[in-house]
C-alpha cells in the first residue's frame, strides 16, 4: 500500500519525515498558546476566549461548542500575527534583531529529530521505535542542540538596544547555563541504570544514550522491568522537572520575560510575526522537554506502568498492524506530553514568580548539590546492586 513511499530516495523520505514532524509540531505549539489562555481562564473562574467564529461556519450545527472552546480564536490570532505590520524599531541592530526569532526556532525544531515518539512491531516481530534519527547519543543531542536556544534570547535582548530586553538577555544567559547543569546531572542515573551490567543487553552492546532504549527498558517484563523510572528515581525526576521549568522559562522561573519588572524583556521590542515565532519556539521547547520527561520517567508510549504498548496491542489484537500500532503509540505519547503541558500551565497559574536572586540561589545552592548527591547515591547503589 505504501510501496511508492519506500521507493522514494532516502533523502526525500527523510525530508518528508522531518516536514511531517514539523507540520505536527507547529500547530500543536500554536494550539498550546490557545490552551494556555483557556486554562488560565478556567482556573480563574472565567470562560476565556469564546466569541470568535468564522461567519461562513455559523450555520454548522454544534459549531457553538467549538466556538465556546475558542478553537477559531487560534486562526484569528494566527491571521493577525501573519498580517500585522511587522515594525522594526529604528534603534535596533537590524540583522541580529531579525535573526533572533529565526535562531529561536532552529533548536526548538531541530531537537525533534532525536526524540522517539512511538513504536510498532515489524514483520519480524521486533519492536521498532518511530524516530527521525535513531542516534546512539539521543539525550546528548537533545541537550546540546537545545542549549543553543539561549542565543535567541541573548541576541534578541542585545539587538533590541534598549534596557529591559538587554537585562532579560543577561538574565537568560545566566539562568539557562545554571539549570543546564542540574538537568544534565539529574538524568545520568537513568542512563547508568539502563546501561548497567544486568541491563539485559545483547552481545556486543557498547553502551548508549539512546532515548528509545530507555523506553524499551521501561517496558520489560517483571516488576522491576516494567516500573517507570519515576518510581525508581523520583528525586531525579523532580530535579529534572524543576530544571525543565527553568530551562523553558516557565513560571515560577520566568524571570527572563517577567512583565512586572522587565516589561516582557526580550519580547518588548518585537511585534507581529517575529514575536509569535518566539512564542511558538517557547512552546516547542516545552513540548520537547515534556517529551523527554515522559520518555525518561513516565515510560514513553506505554499506556500504564507494568502494561506496555505491546501488551495493549496483543490484548486488542492489532499487534500485526504496524500502522495501527504506530498511531496508537504516537497517540498515547502525544496524550502524555499534552498532559505534561497542562501541568506546566497549571503550575503557571498556581505559583508566583521567584525573584531573580532566588532563582539563582535555588539553582546553585539547592538543586545542583541535590543533583550531585542524587547522582553519587545512585552510582553507589547501582554499583552495589550489580556487583
Amino acid at each position: 500500500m505504501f510501496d511508492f513511499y519506500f521507493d522514494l530516495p532516502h533523502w526525500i523520505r527523510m525530508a518528508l519525515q522531518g516536514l511531517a514532524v514539523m507540520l505536527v509540531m507547529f500547530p500543536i505549539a500554536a494550539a498550546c498558546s490557545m490552551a494556555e489562555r483557556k486554562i488560565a481562564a478556567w482556573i480563574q473562574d472565567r470562560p476565556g476566549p469564546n466569541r470568535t467564529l468564522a461567519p461562513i461556519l455559523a450555520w454548522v450545527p454544534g459549531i457553538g461548542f467549538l466556538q465556546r472552546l475558542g478553537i477559531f480564536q487560534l486562526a484569528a490570532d494566527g491571521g493577525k500575527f501573519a498580517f500585522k505590520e511587522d515594525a522594526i524599531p529604528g534603534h535596533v541592530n537590524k540583522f541580529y534583531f531579525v535573526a533572533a526569532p529565526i535562531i529561536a526556532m532552529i533548536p526548538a525544531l531541530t531537537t525533534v529529530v532525536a526524540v522517539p515518539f512511538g513504536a510498532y512491531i515489524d514483520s519480524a516481530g521486533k519492536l521498532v521505535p518511530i524516530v527521525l534519527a535513531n542516534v546512539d547519543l539521543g539525550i546528548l543531542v537533545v541537550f546540546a542542540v537545545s542549549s543553543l536556544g539561549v542565543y535567541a534570547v541573548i541576541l534578541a535582548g542585545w539587538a533590541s538596544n534598549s534596557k529591559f530586553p538587554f537585562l532579560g538577555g543577561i538574565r537568560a544567559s545566566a539562568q539557562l547555563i545554571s539549570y543546564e547543569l542540574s538537568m544534565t546531572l539529574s538524568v545520568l542515573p537513568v542512563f547508568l541504570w539502563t546501561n548497567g551490567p544486568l541491563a539485559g543487553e545483547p552481545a556486543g552492546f557498547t553502551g548508549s544514550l539512546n532515548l528509545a532504549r530507555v523506553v524499551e527498558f521501561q517496558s520489560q517484563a517483571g516488576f522491576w522491568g516494567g516500573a517507570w523510572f519515576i518510581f525508581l528515581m523520583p528525586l531525579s525526576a523532580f530535579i529534572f522537572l524543576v530544571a525543565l521549568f527553568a530551562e523553558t522559562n516557565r513560571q515560577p522561573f520566568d524571570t527572563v520575560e517577567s512583565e512586572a519588572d522587565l516589561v516582557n524583556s526580550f519580547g518588548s521590542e518585537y511585534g507581529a510575526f517575529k514575536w509569535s515565532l518566539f512564542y511558538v519556539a517557547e512552546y516547542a521547547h516545552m513540548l520537547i522537554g515534556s517529551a523527554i520527561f515522559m520518555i525518561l520517567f513516565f515510560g514513553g508510549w506505554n499506556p500504564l506502568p507494568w502494561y506496555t504498548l505491546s501488551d495493549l496491542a496483543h490484548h486488542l489484537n492489532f499487534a500485526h498492524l504496524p500502522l495501527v500500532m504506530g498511531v496508537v503509540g504516537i497517540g498515547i505519547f502525544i496524550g502524555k506530553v499534552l498532559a505534561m503541558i497542562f501541568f506546566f500551565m497549571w503550575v503557571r497559574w498556581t505559583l508566583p514568580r521567584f525573584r531573580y536572586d532566588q532563582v539563582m540561589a535555588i539553582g546553585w545552592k539547592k538543586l545542583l548539590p541535590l543533583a550531585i548527591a542524587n547522582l553519587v547515591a545512585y552510582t553507589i547503589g547501582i554499583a552495589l546492586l550489580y556487583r
Partner: protein
Amino acid sequence: MSSDIFFYIFAALTAGSALAVVFTKNTVAAALSLLVSLVGVAAIFVLLDAFLLAALMVFVYAGAVVALFLFIVMLLDSQGGTRKPFKKATLFSGFVALLLLIVGLASFAQRGAQAAIVHEVPAAAVPVGASLRAYGEQLFTTYLLPVQIVGFLLLIAMLGVIVLSKKFEGLGDIK
C-alpha cells in the same frame, strides 16, 4: 563522494567565521562568529565519526562557553572603541608569522602529495569514536590519572573564579 562536499562546505564555514572573529569590530558579532565556527567544527567531527565529541563540542563550547563570553561582553559593554594603528613590531611579527604559516602549509601540501603520512590501517567494522563504551573504557583505564587531574583542575578553577569574583573588603587602598 558526498561527504567530501560536506567537508568543504563546513571547512569553509568554519574558516570563514573564524576570520570573522578576528576581523569584525563588534565584540558581540565576534562571539557569534565564534559560535558559528564551533558549530562548523562540530560538523567536521561528525564527518570524522566522532559523534560524542561533536555533541560535547556543541554542548560545552557552543552552549556554555560562548554564552559565557556573550554574558561577559554584555556585562562589560565593550563596544569596539577606537582603534590605534599597529606598531611596527606587531606588523613585523605578523608578517613573520604569515611567512611561517605559508611555509608550513606549503610543506603540508607537498607532503600530502607524497601521501606518506598515513600508513594504511585496515578499516574497523565500527568507526573509531562512534561507540560510547570505548570512550568510557579509555577514560577510566589508560587515562585515569589525567581524568583525575582534570577534575582537580576544574575544582581549582572553580575556587579561583569564586575568589576572583568576590569583592574583598578593606583592600580599596591597594592600587
